[in-house]
């Protein structure tokens, strides 16, 4: 199916890309370290909605300055998050359903920030640096149940 001159040219391009646009060493290291971020005991709340990936007309009408909305869900739990750009940073405002208090750990880059969700399941963060982030919900002490982690997204 593949003929030889094309294969040779493709191989030449491959060497060129390896030479000019290699994967930066610090990113290779970050990918190796990603394994350490796994939380094997937690349930994963999957990304089920992202306004940036929703290409219907409504989202086009909303325009680029509107906040980004993302939703994660697992079992009966839903986490809706509004992401607002504040200059170079990103701020989160979230709602957990069913509502209830929880500790919300925002895992990003090398750091983790903890905020508290109130009785109505609402939480908000200060400005965070752009980049990969994931939320980890811990039920309040004594409430039991497994922790929930969300899919990673790029803020």
């Amino acid at each position, binding site marked *: *199916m*593949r003929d030889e001159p*094309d294969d040779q*040219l*493709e191989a*030449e*391009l*491959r060497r*060129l*890309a*390896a*030479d*000019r*646009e290699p*994967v*930066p060493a610090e*990113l*290779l290291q*970050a*990918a*190796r370290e*990603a*394994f350490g*971020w*796994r*939380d*094997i005991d937690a349930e*994963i709340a999957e990304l089920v909605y*992202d306004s*940036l*990936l929703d290409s219907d007309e409504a989202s086009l009408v909303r325009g*680029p*300055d509107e906040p*980004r909305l993302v939703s994660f869900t697992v079992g009966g739990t839903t986490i809706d998050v509004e992401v607002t*750009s504040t200059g170079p940073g990103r701020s989160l405002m979230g709602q957990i359903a069913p509502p209830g208090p929880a500790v919300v750990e925002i895992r990003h880059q090398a750091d983790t920030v903890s905020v508290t969700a109130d009785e109505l399941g609402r939480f908000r963060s200060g400005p965070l640096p*752009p*980049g*990969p982030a*994931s939320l980890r919900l811990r039920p309040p002490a004594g409430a039991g149940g497994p922790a929930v*982690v969300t*899919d*990673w*997204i*790029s803020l």
Partner: protein
Amino acid sequence: MAVDPDETGQLVRDAAGGDEIAWRGLVDRFSSLVWSVARAHRLGNADAADVFQTTWLRLAEHITRIEQPERVGAWLATAARRECLQCLRTAGRAVPTDDMDRLDLAPAADSPTEEAVLAAEQEREDAARAALLWRAVGRLPARCQELLRILMASPPPSYAEVAAALGLPLGSIGPTRARCLQRLRAEMGGIRNEVAPS
């Protein structure tokens, strides 16, 4: 060397069991592909880095639940593509790069020995050829640039991975590749004629 899907599947299963060496094997095998997806979507360096990291973090979290372990390359390519599309739609983040157009010839060596002179000459020839090739890629239509950038991943991606990376039908990859490589040769010829008109 193409990638063996059975070995890939085993790496996924071992990593799912907590084997960090297997995880490193996956990173070695597919990091170039994930990087190529970010490059093909013309993201700036910071955004490309975010896409790359988010994709690997996401795989780490999902590693125990990959339905077709031998197809994890396509899973990664799909995840990376989604991140790229999201990134391109975030206000103020889409800063296209013109890396494909950039011409940076390697500096000529200035060693005095005859061997070094010959080596330097060979190096200059190689650099000239590389520059020509890179420049010709930069002149291709966007679709061809995107496809070739994915095909440039190392080890060579499967067509299923290329299709996942670009959101294209599997059957279109082979014919498009042939057309784009043909076009690339034509562009190289065109540039040669501009440099040295006959």
